[in-house]
Structure formats: structure tokens, C-alpha cells
């Protein structure tokens, strides 16, 4: 019997990537740092996928950003804005509703 298509799980993870990224952005982090932390949390993501998400969140005011020019070269840091905290709370609630509904449906399935 064939196992689960890895793309299915990747799609499920992609659906919650934004929420997980927001959870990691209470402290200021730069793009590659976030890629690394997401990978450690079990969410492998390429820069080409994450960067457009960060940019979109920044344009919507969910994230605030600043360039750190104190190091060897300038580096852009992202962090959650006050509006972003509110959005994250709403997103978390939505996620819990989806999770609870999914769990409820799964309890009906004979193991």
C-alpha cells in the first residue's frame, strides 16, 4: 500500500506557515534566521517562498521592519507589530477552530 504523498503534508504545513512564522517573530529576526528557525520547528521553507510572505505581511502592517547597519553589512530585521499581534491572535483562534473540527471528525473514524 503506498504511503502518504509527501506533497499533501507539505501543503498542510504551508497552510499554517504564516501562523508559525508570526509565532517566531516576537523578537526581531532577519530572513535567513527565520528560515533556520522554521526548519528547526519542522517547517522546511525556501527563501523564495518565505520572502514574498514576509513582504506581504510587512505591506499589510502585520510586521514592522528595520535595517541594522551596525554589522559588517546591512541586514533587514522583521518583528511583529502591535497590529500583527492582534492578527496573530485571530489567526490562532481560527487555527484552533480548524484543528478542533478536524479532531472531532477524526474521532468518528474507526482506527
Amino acid at each position, binding site marked *: 500500500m503506498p504511503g502518504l504523498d509527501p506533497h499533501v503534508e507539505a501543503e498542510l504545513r504551508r497552510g499554517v506557515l504564516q501562523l508559525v512564522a508570526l509565532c517566531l517573530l516576537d523578537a526581531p529576526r*532577519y530572513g535567513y534566521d527565520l528560515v533556520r528557525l522554521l526548519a528547526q520547528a519542522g517547517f522546511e521553507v525556501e*527563501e523564495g517562498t518565505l*520572502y514574498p510572505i514576509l513582504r*506581504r505581511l510587512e505591506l499589510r502592517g502585520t510586521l514592522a521592519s528595520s535595517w541594522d547597519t551596525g554589522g559588517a553589512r*546591512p*541586514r533587514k530585521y522583521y518583528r511583529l507589530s502591535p497590529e500583527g499581534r492582534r492578527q496573530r491572535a485571530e489567526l490562532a483562534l481560527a487555527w484552533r477552530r480548524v484543528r478542533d473540527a478536524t479532531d472531532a471528525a477524526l474521532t468518528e473514524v474507526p482506527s
Partner: protein
Amino acid sequence: MTLKSPQARAYLERLRDLLPPSEASRVVAEVESLILDRVEAEGPGAPLEEAERRALAHLGSPDTLADTLAEAPLQVGWSSRRAFTRWFSVLAAGHLLFSILLTVGKAEVDALPGLLGPLPTAPWWGTVSAALGIVLLDAGIVFVLFTLLGAWGRSGALPLPGRARGWTRAEALRTLVLVSLLALIAHPLRDEIFAVRRGATSTPFLAPDLLALIPWLDVVLGLVLLRALLVVGGKADAPLTHGVDLLAGIGGVLLLVLAATRHEIVRLPPAVLGQEVAGVLGNVITRVVLLVFVAAALLLAVAVIKRGLRLRQVLSA
């Protein structure tokens, strides 16, 4: 720390071309920072160019990245729409310009039958509908080209007119040789090359109307020569060099437009070839030469856009 590999620089250039100018610099700076972060994370031991290539792989193609950055991509990819608009604008503007010049120059025949010729001057709605026809025709041509190339999976065959890159010293030296050859052909060798021979008699056939443009050609060749000399002299990226390059391009387009709108391009001698042969051959040569002039002018117009973008970049830097 800056990017080392030509691939990484080309990636950012391509990305810059695909993005709206108001956002390009900011996004490119951020993406460059992402690449450098990934390179840095590989440690000091890794060869930089290899590390940069691997970092680029994590970003995907610049076209896809630019497409993803667009707020709401519809059925046609954002980069494709941008390429379509640019190519359509260049083609339609060139087409209209040539048609107007052919009209002003009172050309009596189409340069390209059914495609390029003088506009009707009366009634006024005839002129308007002819201009509209040109726009629709060009939109159709570009649409068909994009559809075919897209269907063949070769949409990259119509690259966006991006910035022109500068010449290397070897290219400048080759240009010096080429300019010298053209100058030789335009002056001492002209009547030897462009002539009809029968026995000991040699009759030049270029029309005086066309030969009147030789001083213009000299000016354009002079500008190209100056640019090549500046590059050989080590000033390849100086604003003056790019300015001269842009002037030479504009001069070249004007020269080709003027050449394509001459009343007479060749005058074959009927006394040597016979009335009928001279007429038919003259007509064929005129059509072929017009086709070459028009194609060259369109290509050069695209090159002028690239040179303009390059000059703007050099000046802003």
C-alpha cells in the same frame, strides 16, 4: 561583503527589470541580503561563487519570485504581461513612427506590403482608422508570438528589454575595426562596391537621395568610434561613455528612418541593364533594402531603450 558571481548579479539585474521601478531597489537590496545571509551561513571555507549559486537555488527563478511578489497575479503571469506591454509598446510606437515618416516623406509605395506604408491623409477618419489598424495589428502580432512561444514553453525567447551591458575592451577593439571597414565602404570603396559593371564600364547605382545621408552616417560612425576609444581607454563605465553610446544609438535610428523614407534608394542604369530589367531589379533591391532598414531600426530602437536604462542607472549610482 558583496556578491561575487556573475550569476548572482545577473539574477538581481533580471529581478530589477521585472519589478516596478518604485519597488525594485528595495526588493533587490532585500534579496541580495538574503543571498548573502545564506552564503555567510555556509561558513568561510566554502567557495563564494558556488555558495552564491546554491543560495540562488533557494530563491527560485527571478521571474517566479517577481511573479509571487505581485499582489494579485491573474491568468497571465505578471512578468509576461509586463513583457507583452513592453514589446507591444516598442513595436506599435516604431510602426506608427515609420508610417508617419513615410506619410510625411510622401512615399508612394509600401515599405512592407500590407504591413508598413504611408497613412492615408484624407479623409481624417481614414487616417485615424489606419492608425488604429496598426495598433491592433501589432497587438495581434505580439499576442500570436507570445502564445506560440508560451505553447512551446519558450516564453523566455522574448526577453524584456533590460539594461544594456557595457563593452569589454576586446569588443571595443572589434568595433574599431568594424567602424573602419564601414567608413572605407562608405567613402573610397563605395563606387566600386555599389556599381553595375559591363565590360570596362562601371556605373554606380546608389541614388543621390540616399548618398545625401553619408554625412549623417559619418556622425554616427564618429560617435561609435568615440565610444570604442573611451572603452579602450579604460572608461567603460563612465557616464560620458554611456551618454555617447546613447547618442550613437539615437543617431543610428534616425539615420535608418531617414534612409527608409528616401524617395529613391537605388538608380540602376537602364542603358546598361535595359529598361525592364533595371525597373524590376531596382524595385526588388529597394524592397529588400527597406526591409533591412526597418528591421535594423526596430532592433536598434530596443537597444536605445536598453542604453537609456543603463545611462540612468550609471547616473543614479
